[in-house]
């Protein structure tokens, strides 16, 4: 591999209560890829991301971001949670949510100022939501809420982006807008890791893919490993997908 390794996972095992959700995962994600994590419901896709981000404590295994623990490298990492994980009726505005992306670099107690506001406005513009900056977040459509979440991660100005189903419940226009931003991020040398559900779009959107179903099934370039064999191993049924090109 010519590229540096952005995320290195060794022997990762995670369990809720007694049931293992991830079993002995080894995974190396090279720098600069746009990677999809695919697998059936309950395969542990979100859990994998949350373990990397230190939200969930694994039973065993080690995770390194550019050779160091997440705690030391968190300024390099941005996260877009599942849209459904928060209450969108929360009393706040779109701009305010995007500003939250600056809180990590601010640290404890310090309040965001003009510089942070400027960064947030720029991110809003990038996702095409600038005119909605003062909108109460419950009055945004699902796609707009997703864009706000994306803008919040962009503000973090990270090297590695983790996104949990950013295309869930968004229309075709928003999906295109989001994937274009992700492709731009990759062009700028960032690493983007996306939990993804729509197998049809994997070859079009991503250049790297990881098949996951509690165990890691396969990982590598889409053009090499995105095939019926791996899909069948992951989804357990005879899965046929038409791979273009």
């Amino acid at each position, binding site marked *: 591999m010519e590229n540096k390794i952005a995320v290195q996972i060794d022997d990762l095992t995670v369990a809720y209560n007694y049931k293992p959700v991830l079993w002995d995962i080894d995974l190396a994600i090279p720098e600069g890829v746009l990677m999809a994590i695919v697998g059936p419901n309950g395969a542990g896709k979100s859990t994998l991301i949350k373990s990397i981000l230190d939200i969930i404590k694994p039973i065993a295994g080690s995770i390194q971001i550019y050779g160091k623990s997440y705690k030391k490298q968190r300024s390099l990492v941005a996260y877009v949670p599942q849209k459904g994980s928060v209450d969108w009726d929360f009393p*706040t505005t779109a701009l305010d949510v995007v500003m939250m992306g600056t*809180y990590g670099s601010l640290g404890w107690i310090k309040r965001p100022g003009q510089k942070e506001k400027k960064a947030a406005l720029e991110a809003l513009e990038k996702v095409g939501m600038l005119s909605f900056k003062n909108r109460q977040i419950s009055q945004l459509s699902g796609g707009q809420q997703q864009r706000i979440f994306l803008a919040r991660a962009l503000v973090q100005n990270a090297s590695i982006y983790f996104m949990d189903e950013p295309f869930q419940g968004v229309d075709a226009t928003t999906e295109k807008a989001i994937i274009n931003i992700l492709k731009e991020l990759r062009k700028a040398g960032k690493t983007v890791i996306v939990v993804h559900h729509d197998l049809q779009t994997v070859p079009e959107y991503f250049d790297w893919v990881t098949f996951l179903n509690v165990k890691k099934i396969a990982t590598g370039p889409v053009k090499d490993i995105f095939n019926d064999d791996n899909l069948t191993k992951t989804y357990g049924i005879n899965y046929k997908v038409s791979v273009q090109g």
Partner: protein
Amino acid sequence: MDIQQYIELVFTDYTLRTITLGTAVLGAICGMLGSFAVLRKQSLLGDAISHAALPGIAIAFLIMGTKNSSIFLLGALISGLIGTFWIRGITSKTHLKSDTALGLILSLFFGFGMLLLTYIQKMPNANQAGLESYLFGQAATLLESDVWLMVIVTAISLVILLLFWKELKLLLFDADYTKTLGFNTKFLDILITTFIVIAIVLGLQTVGVVLMSAMLLAPAAAARQWTNNLSVMVILAAIFGAFSGVLGTAISASHNNLSTGPVIVLVAGVFVLVSFIFSPGRGLLFREIRFRKNRNDLQLHKTLSFMYNIAKTHEDIAHPHAIKILNNFQGFTRKSLQKLEDKDYVKISGNMWSMTESGYNTASNLYDQLITEENE
């Protein structure tokens, strides 16, 4: 006693002034911290904590043998905190959901507290009288020192809120994300929960174990209706809480000393009711009005676009047509036609109508408008 007498008394009567101040400060701190409980979806936690505090009060009395409200507060605080952490323990260590854990702790602690209370009542100790007033509260027992304690705690929690405002807001909205940014969510969680417990314990003497959670939730629920801004919500909740305290005390004092706690809670309930109905953004009344207006507008627009389709087949848009041809169109009435004329979209002369320039333009843009509104 009428209201005027009462107002005079507040400024002259020491006891009444103490009680009024006490309930106002209590209402304010409960409203403030209650906003956080409501937004964390932990509304019932307040109920469980206040019930869990009862055995603490009884045990404090059993150990000390005298009635001393600061010792009682300490007992209530300890047993309230134990209850809270058991609830958290049950939810994280077992498969039980939080509502089950809350219900379990609430009834177990309350039951144990009641057991101790009846035991204490049978004891040959003259001091025991009045301990059961903690069930429904007795504002009359508030002393100046109690009020000072409330003021100090309110000031401390205000400082904490201002200091950690950014972090607490983040925690309320998105706890996982807060963690990934490197904030210690456990610390923040314990911080805010502890202050909620303290606020509840402070209110037990005034409002009582049974009704205390309403003090916490009602002002916050009412405030949420009026604003979409967290800071405004917290401030409004504090104001609503304080007013509930003052008004409740006033009503109870001027009506033959009705029990203060329940009256305060009922006043807070009125705030909620009024807010649910009359708040401009989220209130039921304005929502209904908006809904009806939209429906009427749609009806008019439908008629207009039907007329537009007829008019556009003619070179001269102002070409008159018979009103009769609209009869086939569902949703058309004389009244809606009149409304369209009022808006200067059509002209009516006798049995004929014709479209005006502005009506034609509005109708031709109608469809585009709908599309852009949707995409907004």
